[in-house]
């Protein structure tokens, strides 16, 4: 298949597969050779097969605000994204370092608050932050781990240049797609896995389960771990069910649990059973109508009390949002220096905080070139991509910013790398990012790769699935 048949390769963005002359980079050489020998009908057929299988498996998600229906399949692209081992080492080391610092940060601000005392982070940034949970002050969590599962969003702008776009430390999702994508690729193209040594990833759920069991309350020989889901109408429900099944743990909803005398139980066919660790995929606010939002029907009455008493462990801990807040993001490199005494391996994207007058002035003057995000947003909702916005959208967003500047941060539009993608017009470069998943327990680990998200619309830089993005399998070569 002629890869250049659909036009130039947009040389101003780093193309992960091809260099400026159309020759594949070394780490992609094997795959590129294989691909060029395949007729386009073969690839089309395989893509169709993938789409059908995904639909049949019911690997779907729901898009909020979408009128077309409750479920949609996440588009999966059959061209893999390959990462050089050297690049992966940097990403992996960088993520581990970052997570050690973030966990140390959370432990600190919910206890002695040394980092504030040292003048590195202003008190208001933490204490006035909507996501800081005063209820967590002084509570000790097992192994001092607050974020058991993190998703770090990383972009590549050159072969060795990475930026951390944001940290996701509350209920990061997408790992099920990472795992299912790999299974799908192995099914569609088994020969590729014979030809090359692609680092396996299916031990993710084993590591996660071990970590979860390890943070059970003290003295429990055989802890019961459950996964708490908001239910089948949640956009990530497929993932909740998938993970629970892979780990061999019960998938529970709030109604299945109850708390008596600060102990948590689940309702089984043979009566109540004690629960020790809850991998919760429900936001803090909805976890416990007694402690948090009283109108929540998704949570468990008295759960926070049981948590505070140390009778049940929650993963991730309550109150981690203050660390993945986009305004706290700016301080993460400082955290690495302060807690670990190291220089950050991965760079932050230069970020303007609109709560500061100079930053606000700059941003308003350069809005069409910037990406602006809500400080406490997620999922790509409520953001502005300057270069892609219409005049009307720009004006509307400008008004929002002026209305409450502290709610926003801005970053330069990054030249995200591209990766060939099988789109309607054929194979064409599309922007990608990477979300590796970091598991923290007694050790901090990553499975090689992570979820590659791809913006399917030509020129689009927004990769979130909720905004029309797709995914690819991510390969890290061994050795």
């Amino acid at each position, binding site marked *: 298949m002629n890869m250049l048949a659909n036009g130039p390769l947009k040389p101003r963005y780093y193309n992960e597969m091809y260099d400026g002359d159309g020759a594949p980079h070394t780490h992609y050489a094997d795959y590129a050779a294989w691909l060029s020998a395949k007729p386009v009908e073969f690839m089309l057929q395989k893509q169709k097969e993938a789409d059908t299988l995904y639909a049949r498996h019911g690997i779907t998600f729901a898009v909020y605000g979408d009128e077309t229906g409750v479920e949609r399949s996440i588009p999966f692209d059959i061209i893999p994204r390959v990462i050089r081992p050297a690049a992966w080492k940097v990403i992996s080391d960088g993520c581990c370092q970052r997570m050690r610092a973030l966990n140390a940060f959370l432990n600190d601000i919910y206890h002695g608050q040394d980092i504030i005392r040292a003048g590195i982070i202003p008190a208001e940034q933490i204490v006035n932050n909507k996501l800081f949970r005063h209820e967590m002050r002084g509570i000790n969590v097992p192994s001092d781990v607050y974020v058991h599962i993190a998703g770090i969003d990383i972009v590549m702008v050159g072969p060795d240049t990475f930026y951390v776009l944001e940290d996701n430390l509350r209920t990061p999702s997408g790992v099920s797609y990472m795992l299912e994508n790999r299974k799908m690729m192995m099914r569609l193209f088994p020969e590729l896995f014979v030809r090359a040594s692609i680092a396996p990833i299916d031990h993710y759920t084993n590591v996660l389960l071990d970590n979860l069991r390890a943070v059970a309350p003290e003295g429990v020989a055989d802890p019961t771990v459950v996964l708490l889901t908001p239910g089948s109408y949640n956009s990530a429900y497929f993932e909740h069910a998938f993970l629970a099944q892979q780990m061999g743990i019960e998938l529970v909803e709030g109604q299945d649990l109850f708390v008596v005398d600060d102990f948590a139980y689940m309702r089984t066919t043979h009566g*109540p059973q004690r629960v020790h660790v809850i991998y919760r995929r429900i936001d803090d606010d909805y976890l416990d109508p007694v402690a948090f939002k009283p109108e929540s029907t998704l949570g468990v009455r008295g759960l926070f009390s049981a948590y505070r008493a140390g009778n049940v462990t929650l993963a991730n801990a309550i109150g981690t949002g203050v660390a993945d807040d986009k305004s706290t993001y700016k301080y993460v490199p400082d955290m690495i220096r302060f807690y670990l005494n190291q220089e950050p391996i991965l760079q932050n994207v230069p970020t303007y905080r609109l709560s500061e007058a100079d930053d606000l002035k700059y941003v308003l003057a350069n809005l069409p070139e910037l990406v602006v995000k809500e400080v406490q947003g997620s999922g790509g909702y409520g953001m502005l991509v300057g270069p892609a916005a219409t005049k009307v959208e720009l004006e509307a967003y400008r008004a929002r910013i002026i209305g409450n500047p502290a709610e926003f941060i801005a970053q330069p539009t990054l030249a995200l790398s591209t990766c060939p993608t099988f789109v309607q017009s054929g194979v064409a470069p599309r922007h990608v990012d990477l979300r590796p998943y970091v598991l923290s327990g007694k050790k901090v680990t990553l499975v090689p790769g992570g979820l590659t998200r791809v913006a399917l619309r030509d020129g689009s830089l927004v990769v979130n699935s909720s905004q029309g993005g797709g995914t690819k399998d991510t390969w890290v070569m061994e050795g």
Partner: protein
Amino acid sequence: MLARAANNLYWMSRDIERAENSARMLDVTYRMSLLPYRVLEEGQEWAEPWALPLVMNGLATAYYARYPGNLTPDSVMRFMVLDPANPASIYACLQSARENARSVRGAITSEMYEDLNEVWLQMREMTYESIQERGFSEFFDWVKLQSHQFRGVTFGTMLRDEGYQFIRLGTFMERADNTARILDVKYHALLPSVDDVGGAVDYYQWGALLRSVSAFDAYRKVYRDIITPMKVAELLILRDDVPRSMHACMNEIYEILRELCDDSQKESERQAGELHARLHYGRTQQIIDHGLHEYLMEFLDAMATLTQEISFDFLGKAREPLTAELETG
């Protein structure tokens, strides 16, 4: 296992069985409607063949609210096959089954879910016209086949854990209930007076009753005789070698509950035992003397109570306040 998950599996199973039973019932009604049938006497309109699927499921009121004063094959078919607002329609049953399955995907095998999902995806695309064009009998055969297939996939792939038991329990509870209803309604449509029990009967109508529970061939094998109402009642109530008989279903139900209870004493098991004994040791003449209708009504009431008890004992329905849950363990 999680009480709610068991509940979902149990009802998923009942939904599929109900869809199959509806298909069976409607198929027979449809085929019978192609033959000439006797004119009904005054006050017997409910016995009109197309009304029977409604009466049997207690849906007459709901139906007439939808189609006031209008009983036509077309409307009944629409109501019983495709109406999403009718919880007993084939469409609604399959939708519910799939939703229940989706809620507990972890408790069933991926093959089971994919199979059921596929059935739902196909059902969702159907319109009355597309079914009509394909042929109603073809469609009903398709529904029955899907039910058989799902049962086969379940039997072939599922771990023999509690979830499996609740699925089977759902099937047999629904089946027993359905057999009792069909028998009650059809029997009375065709035999208004108990004096007629020994008399000449309409071969086709009774044959239809037997076919609607796939017991026509069984009857001939067992009795090698003309069809008599008393033998039909015996076959479908007391003989445990006929898969859809009340006795055969109760055999399974009782055994499943005994296994689920293990050593503990539960009310649902006790009730099932009682029901089972009545069927196991019952005699046909006794049933006729008691009054078949009364007998079947009592059975259906007992089944409704048993359904409740199963919910209390296993499926998370609260009988008493919260702390009592811990005490009874």
